[in-house]
């Protein structure tokens, strides 16, 4: 057997999957079952005690989900992964392993709005305190570190404007502070950026977006890079201390460089409960098989649309890191040389009314609150997701009255441009 390493596209099709042992089925079957029979009492005890590899109950693990987990772990270059019901669930499960009440984590200010809400409000009631930092000012992360800091959270390509984060610079801050760096890689997907190669210790995704890619199934995933030593200083007791739930097992000592993924499964998913449906896992797996093809087309289309918009007289500005004039173009060349993603914003000279008018006139672009679909999507944040904010707050969050966000699909780019042309023109 050679140690020759297969490429990304081969892993996207094969990693984690093999013919079904019982039937020989080549596609991964949907194991739509809640539970799995034990061979005997000793087998049951071994599984419950984490001594044996195997299946117990779909809230803890499922064979279809396991294929998805191994595939994403392989694509990200991690040691293990855990699939959960949504990207939001992934964030709760990750931070539950790291934070005790009263602890802090530092998060980049530029994040998906849903994450800002979750961190600010929902997590506050758990006693997990978010401290915001500016991803365009690395020193602001250093200044935010305190003895209670347990993690740093960033997005690789940040919502909504598609700005690129300097992952390596922030990973240096995390290493110095002795805390893990968590990177939400949803908008890049591992095809464009592999955060672990740049110093991430944990990667999370909303699988709902580009990985699943077809706008049909919710899902989330946590990837363990295997790079963080959880044993130092008793800072991460979920990993380093004997767990009463498992008669005194220490997870890091027992599971080594995939202990974090195991903690997320046996302490997080088991007890919090956000399990992924095996049917959704199957849909997302099917999507991932074509990820390299789709992602390249998404990026190529996005660049063409961004260039078109940048030259349009009704457009005031375009924020797309793939444009040479963009503020984030240097970072895009370094971190995402294959393309700067397919989610970006632009602003209209006609302000709020022009934004509302554009959205109503578009025929191919769908007006909805999602990104990373095969279909091209549009949203005017000021009249929808951010409509409750006052104008100043809208502008601060990148959702000023004149701003429109696009998620470019894999249609023919000429048709997308023609649709924008008719909607902007009249």
């Amino acid at each position: 057997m050679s140690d020759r390493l297969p490429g990304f596209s081969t892993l996207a099709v094969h990693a984690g999957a093999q013919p079904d042992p019982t039937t020989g089925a080549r596609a991964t079957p949907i194991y739509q079952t809640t539970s799995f029979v034990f061979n005997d009492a000793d087998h049951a005890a071994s599984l419950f005690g984490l001594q044996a590899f195997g299946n117990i109950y779909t809230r803890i693990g499922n064979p279809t989900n396991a294929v998805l987990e191994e595939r994403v772990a392989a694509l990200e270059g991690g040691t293990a992964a855990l699939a959960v019901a949504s990207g939001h669930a992934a964030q709760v499960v990750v931070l539950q392993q790291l934070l005790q009440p009263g602890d802090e984590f530092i998060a980049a200010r530029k994040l998906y709005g849903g994450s800002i809400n979750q961190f600010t409000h929902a997590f506050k009631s758990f006693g997990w305190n978010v401290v915001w930092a500016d991803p365009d000012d690395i020193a602001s992360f250093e200044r935010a570190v305190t003895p209670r800091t347990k993690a740093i959270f960033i997005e690789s390509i940040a919502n909504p404007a598609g700005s690129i984060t300097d992952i390596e610079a922030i990973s240096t801050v995390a290493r110095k502070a002795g805390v893990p760096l968590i990177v939400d890689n949803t908008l890049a997907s591992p095809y464009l950026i592999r955060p672990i190669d740049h110093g991430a210790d944990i990667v999370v995704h909303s699988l709902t977006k580009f990985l699943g890619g077809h706008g049909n199934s919710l899902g989330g995933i946590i990837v363990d890079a295997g790079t963080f030593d959880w044993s130092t200083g008793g800072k991460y007791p979920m990993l380093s201390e004997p767990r009463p739930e498992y008669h005194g097992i220490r997870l890091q000592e027992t599971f080594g460089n995939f202990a974090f993924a195991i903690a997320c499964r046996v302490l997080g998913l088991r007890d919090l409960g956000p399990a992924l449906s095996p049917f959704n896992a199957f849909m997302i797996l099917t999507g991932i098989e074509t990820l390299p093809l789709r992602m390249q087309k998404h990026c190529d289309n996005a660049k063409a649309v961004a260039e078109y918009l940048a030259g349009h007289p009704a457009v005031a500005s375009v924020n797309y890191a793939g444009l040479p004039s963009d503020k984030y173009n240097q970072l895009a060349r370094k971190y995402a040389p294959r393309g700067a993603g397919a989610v970006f914003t632009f602003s209209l000279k006609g302000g709020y009314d022009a934004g509302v008018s554009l959205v109503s006139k578009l025929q191919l672009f769908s007006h909805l609150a999602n990104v990373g679909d095969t279909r091209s999507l549009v949203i005017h944040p000021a009249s929808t997701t951010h409509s409750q904010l006052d104008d100043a707050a809208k502008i601060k969050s990148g959702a000023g009255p004149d701003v429109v966000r696009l998620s470019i699909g894999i249609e023919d780019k000429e048709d997308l441009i023609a649709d924008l042309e008719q909607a902007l023109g009249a």
Partner: protein
Amino acid sequence: MNHDAYPDNYIRGILNSVKSIAMVGASPVNVRPSYFAFKYLMQRGYDMIPVNPGHVGKELLGKPFVASLSDIGRPVDMIDIFRNSSHIMPVVEEALTLDPLPKVIWMQLGARDDAAAAKAESVGIKVVMNRCPKIEYGRLSSEISWMGVNSRTLSSKRAPAPTQGMRLSLNRMSVGGGNTAASDRAAKNKSEQS
């Protein structure tokens, strides 16, 4: 051998060839990692010998404990050491007095002693440090994939469902990723401090 990163073929060759394994530091406590590994390797068909002077006269899963390597009284292919890095050297020194010599000395996850490794390698013994044979067997057979672990292997072949006592094929195509550099570094630093 570069002990910071083992080629899969090196580990595969060891696990495919050894038949008997003496586990130094085997614990009868069923939440200890040594118990997990002992039980699993026994179920996968290895001839297991528990070595622990504190439990002589008792059995581990039906196998009688012996006090030391020299008390085994028959040749063993591999010695699996479940001790901290600072306690490795005396075990390796004792292993080097055995006749015939073991073919492999394996130090458990978190354990690393480069001087002891060099000593064993100088007489032709293969050495693995800071790895778990249960994890490596589960990984190369892909049985560990049930836990969402990246086996770093691929196969288009239909394999039988694992049952108790079955040896599994470890001959799958190897894949990159699953960096272990950080945990290797941590173990190395700990052994240098002690």
